[in-house]
């Protein structure tokens, strides 16, 4: 027998109103926050609307037609009514008012904050409004790039869980408010702070943007390096033209990316991701391979750490005195 599994929320009941939120970003964020509560040992109950689980038909879909999104977010929760005692409830304002009036700790998702109207909003819209969409991707005129998956909503879910845990620790009644826009703009602070602190914001594809992905023989690698890493990286590639202007400085390399790629591109294209990564890492240059989800299932690091279940489900990403928090829940939704 190992040590007892840590369960900081053991004995606590959490009401997941994610399926009853009016808008999808709120629903995804609430469902993520409740999923984390379940991983921390709470009993999570998820009431469903009359037409059933709203995520059941959402992509990505499995070959049998089931939703991987539903499986990921709702595993370990119990579908059921919002009756009985709950220590905490998570949802949007309307769902909390309708189903959690008596619950002492409420976590309320909104677009802009507790005292603002909640206009129709999507995750892409939130990324746009927060500046997070505009800063990611190739330089204009290329379009900006949305981060894959549900990063906007899931980040809000992480923030919600953190605040909820704190409110539970404090005891008594509390309403925790999480604005989806505030969380996304908080993640993107360098852009806002650039304007407010330094007087100029970074823009997508600016001359300092010297990090990008480069084609390797079997895919791509992420070319990531600091100024101090340039000499070893340059020497690794070994082309004498890299010793000359305009490639000597970071801004010079950033402003002349096409010319730089003409020189370094063939070196990368001739090698596998693993060869490039090994050579760069041997010089402590933080280049890494671009890996697809299917490759991560076989990833040696993830295997060694027991991070992914055989069905691909990731554990809560924390080792707790060397243990993973894995819960078996009878009568679970998934």
């Amino acid at each position, binding site marked *: 027998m190992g040590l007892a599994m840590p369960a900081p929320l053991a004995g606590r009941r959490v009401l997941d109103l994610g399926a009853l939120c009016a808008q999808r970003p709120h629903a995804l964020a609430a469902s993520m926050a409740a999923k984390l509560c379940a991983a921390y040992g709470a009993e999570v109950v998820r009431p469903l609307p009359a037409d059933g689980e709203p995520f059941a038909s959402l992509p990505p879909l499995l070959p049998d037609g089931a939703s991987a999104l539903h499986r990921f977010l709702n595993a370990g929760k119990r579908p059921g009514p919002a009756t009985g005692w709950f220590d905490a409830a998570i949802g949007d304002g309307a769902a909390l008012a309708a189903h959690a009036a008596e619950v002492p700790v409420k976590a309320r998702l909104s677009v802009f*904050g507790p005292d603002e109207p909640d206009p129709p*909003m999507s995750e892409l819209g939130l990324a746009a*409004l927060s500046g997070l969409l505009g800063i990611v991707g190739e330089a204009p005129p290329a379009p900006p*790039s949305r981060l894959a998956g549900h990063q906007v909503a899931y980040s809000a879910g*992480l*923030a919600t869980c953190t605040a909820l845990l704190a409110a539970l620790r404090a005891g008594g009644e509390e309403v925790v408010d999480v*604005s989806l826009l505030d969380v996304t703009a908080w993640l993107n602070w360098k852009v806002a702070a650039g*304007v407010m602190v330094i007087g100029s914001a970074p823009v997508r594809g600016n001359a300092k943007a010297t990090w990008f992905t480069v084609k390797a023989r079997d895919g791509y690698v*992420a070319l*990531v390096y600091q100024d101090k890493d340039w000499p070893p990286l340059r020497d690794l590639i070994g082309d004498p033209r890299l010793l000359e202007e305009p490639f000597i400085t970071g801004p010079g390399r950033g402003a002349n990316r096409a010319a730089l790629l003409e020189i370094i591109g063939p070196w990368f294209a001739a090698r596998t991701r693993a060869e490039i990564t090994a050579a760069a890492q041997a010089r402590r240059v933080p280049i890494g391979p671009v890996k697809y989800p299917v490759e991560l299932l076989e990833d040696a690091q993830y295997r060694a750490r027991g991070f992914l279940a055989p069905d691909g489900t990731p554990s809560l990403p924390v080792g707790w005195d060397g243990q993973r928090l894995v819960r078996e829940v009878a009568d679970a939704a998934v």
Partner: protein
Amino acid sequence: MPQSDPALPLAGIRVVDLGWITAGAASSTLLLDLGADVVKVEGPGAPDPFRQWEGADLGTDWWNRSPFFAFTNRGKQSLCLDLKDPRGREVLLRLLEEADVLVENFRRGVMASFGLDPAMLRQRFPRLVIASISSQGETGPDRDMVSFGSTLEATAGLAALTGAGEAPVITGRDVNYPDQVVCLFAAGAIVAALLERDRTGQGAHLDLSQRELTSFLLGEELIAAAAGAPSPRRGNLDPAEPGERLVADGEGGWRVEWPGGSAPVRDGVALAAAEEFVRGTAVLRSPDGSPAKGIPFRFARRPLAVKDSCHDLGADNRTVLQAAGFAAEEIDRLEAAGLLATAPRTAKRG
């Protein structure tokens, strides 16, 4: 130490913050915002690299003037202590006797090189919550792999699925997404560990891998891949929102349109000027008026706020040590030996 607000959730919790740049330091800042007292500990030979900044005037105390350092670390007490010296290590161990949480995001192996191996700390301070935030985690064959946030976007699966063009996209140094998002999760895991300690009396060593978190946030894609479903790069299309699209606004910018709404793709200038941003909490102000890292949630009954500005390096050396029971003469000796300082040992830009 100043008295923290007794009404806040982490009132009375003492955090020793060895965190650097964002992943460690901003996690500790969230704990501060929830009511903890945070002492940021930096060595005179190894201050937080965030203190180095492009606009630094080398004729000044440039290490106290980094805008982004001050933005991130506002409100923490500052202790400048040489952990590489055994006498400095002993001082830190005495601080840990009174501490509840230790946060660190050094390269793996650095803590052990200081004689501060987490396993030893766990044994010596059984109630301490140790949060080790790292790229790959404490174990495994890639434990020592060198990575920045954007490297992890690549190795965790996010880059492969991101990008509107032919190539996978990383967020780069202006975002370094995994470094930002880990703070939201790590702070929660630390609060969870404090709840567990309330239940059991036991602290914990939390091994937080930023790469794992980044993959976790793509969990549905991992489950789909394991079942044999493809993992397409969808660019700006969200198959769950088929009516949504990104369109050029005719003025060199872009708009997002979806059934029922639309939004401009803002740059930093537009964001900073937006009313809902100004009314929001993503960026707040320190008491000295300077912009400060905001707080990504609000409590209706226990208002959270940025209560203090950034302290100069080592400004709290004496206060912190006195509170930990050091006699004035002991502190004098540590200062004379250069183990306590108020400037980097080599006061130049690295």
